[in-house]
């Protein structure tokens, strides 16, 4: 299967800032691909380069087999949805959507009636036909977003690019629109790339996720893959809440800096960083436990604890039922066990699985166990 878009060794520099560093990426036909990363990771620059809004300093963007450098932005047949929509403020919704069809050279331009018909059909698809005569200023954020989408689709692009498509919307609208866009993509199967800094959005919406950091791709994979098998400490940290613990590997044992034993990992001796997500930590009541429950709050079906441990504090999450069964309260002393976790020995290397060192039910008695 040939790639719909192929990015080969693209680099981009803004002044002294290296925004993109030798990026290689294939976008598959019909897929919905997320570019995920914190601000400044280069994801928007990459999207703008694909659209032809920015030129790379080095490297190529291929559409099918053709080098896109030959084409101006307007000739790439790319639909671009801007972060703040960039609707033409002096045109009605209808005129906005029709714009791309009206600026075609007269020889190739569609007849007026055909343009009107297509615009109406697009507005119906985004469920905004009733707002065709409004001005952009009279629309809500979610409506503007959908107008921008209809406008981008009007030119029947080969690729749809969306820059932080839900960034400017409030949480509820964002969630609805996310579902709606996913359903739309199922229908149209248009190759789409969207930029986001929100991991939930990327994981829920995308077929594949590209995690970016500091101008480089950290990992490319399915939503489940990047979450469960992060390729680097950055990916693990960026995708969801986690606890970071500095440690050493000593003969397959993972030892924290203060000497407590965290678990086992098949890794060579040396310093390392272990990550344990809140729901991967277990608490048990122990009178001699070195850990203290500092704070507990119920959050829907979950209880979130802040557990003080030496100088640091760790986040722990568990189902409400379990919390009730444990019968613990704030200020109680507890011991902590990591059911599993991720150990990174060197930057940029994939994780080594962290395993508990002994059966979980015997934990309390083991000297050196975390928190005891």
């Amino acid at each position, binding site marked *: 299967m040939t790639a719909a878009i192929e990015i080969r060794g693209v680099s981009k520099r803004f002044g002294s800032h290296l925004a993109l560093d030798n990026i290689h990426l294939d976008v598959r036909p019909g897929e919905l691909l997320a570019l995920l990363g914190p601000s400044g990771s280069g994801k928007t620059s990459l999207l703008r380069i694909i659209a032809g809004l920015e030129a790379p300093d080095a490297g190529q963007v291929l559409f099918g087999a053709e080098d896109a450098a030959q084409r101006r932005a307007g000739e790439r047949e790319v639909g*671009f949805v*801007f972060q703040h929509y960039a609707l*033409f403020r*002096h045109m009605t919704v209808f005129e906005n959507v029709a714009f791309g069809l009206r*600026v075609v050279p007269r020889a190739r331009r569609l007849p007026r009636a055909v343009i009107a018909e297509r615009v109406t059909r697009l507005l119906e698809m985004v469920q905004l036909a009733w707002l065709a005569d409004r001005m952009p200023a009279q629309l809500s954020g979610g409506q503007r977003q959908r107008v921008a989408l209809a406008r981008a689709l009007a030119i029947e692009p080969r690729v749809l690019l969306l820059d932080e498509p839900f960034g400017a919307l409030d949480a509820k609208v964002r969630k609805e629109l996310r579902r709606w866009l996913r359903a739309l993509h199922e229908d149209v199967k248009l190759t789409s790339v969207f930029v986001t800094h929100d991991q939930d959005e990327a994981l829920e919406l995308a077929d594949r996720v590209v995690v970016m950091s500091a101008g480089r791709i950290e990992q490319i994979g399915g939503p489940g893959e990047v979450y469960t098998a992060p390729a680097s400490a950055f990916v693990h940290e960026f995708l969801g809440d986690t606890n970071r613990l500095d440690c050493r590997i000593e003969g397959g044992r993972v030892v924290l800096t203060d000497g407590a034993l965290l678990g086992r990992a098949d890794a060579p001796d040396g310093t390392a960083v272990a990550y344990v997500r809140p729901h991967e930590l277990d608490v048990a009541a122990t009178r001699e436990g070195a850990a203290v429950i500092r704070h507990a709050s119920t959050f829907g079906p979950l209880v979130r604890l802040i557990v003080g441990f030496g100088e640091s504090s760790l986040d722990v999450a568990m189902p409400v039922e379990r919390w009730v069964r444990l019968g613990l309260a704030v200020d109680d002393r507890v011991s902590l066990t990591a059911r599993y976790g991720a150990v990174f020995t060197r930057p940029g290397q994939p994780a080594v699985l962290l395993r508990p060192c002994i059966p979980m039910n015997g934990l309390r008695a083991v000297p050196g166990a975390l928190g005891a």
Partner: protein
Amino acid sequence: MSSVALRTDGSLARPILIALAMLVAGVVLGLPLAIVLVEAFARGPGTYLAALVDPDTIDAIALTLIVALCSVSVTTVFGIAAAWCIARFTFRGRSLLLTLIDLPFSVSPVIAGLVQVLLFGRRGWLGPFLAAHDVRIVFALPGIVLATVFVTLPFVARELMPLMQEQGAEEEEAALSLGASGWQTFRRVTLPNIRFALLTGVLLANARAMGEFGAVSVVSGHIRGATNTMPLQVEILFNDYQIEAAFAVASVLALLALVTLGLKLALERRQSVLLTTKGSAP
């Protein structure tokens, strides 16, 4: 604003300050305008009209209109070009260019006239050459236009640059990504978005062009019926002790100023509506 309430609680500051401000505005701004009208009509509307239909005055009005038309055209094209490159691109020397665009504002208008005489005057650099080819620039229309262009050059650019910077390039990028050409993008997206500010700039440039005195007085030669613009006509009449006639012509210029200010207010209001109702997020 609750802070206003706080500050003015039981205080005499408010009425005293307002009264003082009204006094200052009345004396500094109001009286000059009032005396123009009073003096113009001091001997009744008959004298007033007679002063306006005087052939020399009619010629001065015609010349003023021609000068304004020529110089405002140059200023407008320059202003759009300057705003486009300043607001849409970053490049080396951009801030120097910004300073140079502002330069005519801070130079004395007399210098704007002086440089024309130094270049094109009878004893100027190009004087002998121009005389040999029988071209007159100084003491003629071209010199007046050149001097006026010099002083009005920044007006349109000044109105457009901050606005275009604030509006950003996203709508233009959207138009280009939808396949519009550069010209289509400018005409269908940029121009409608800046139209009121552009009109404001043209209006202000026009007011300045019609009212310019220092620069024009140096290059005009004060030839009655030929190189006198309206402000120069005011000067000549005033110095001839034809006070009512001088104020009559002055009243036309004052009216122009008032109309300009009124239109500017209206345009600014419409542009700010256009700006706040942009298509992007609130």
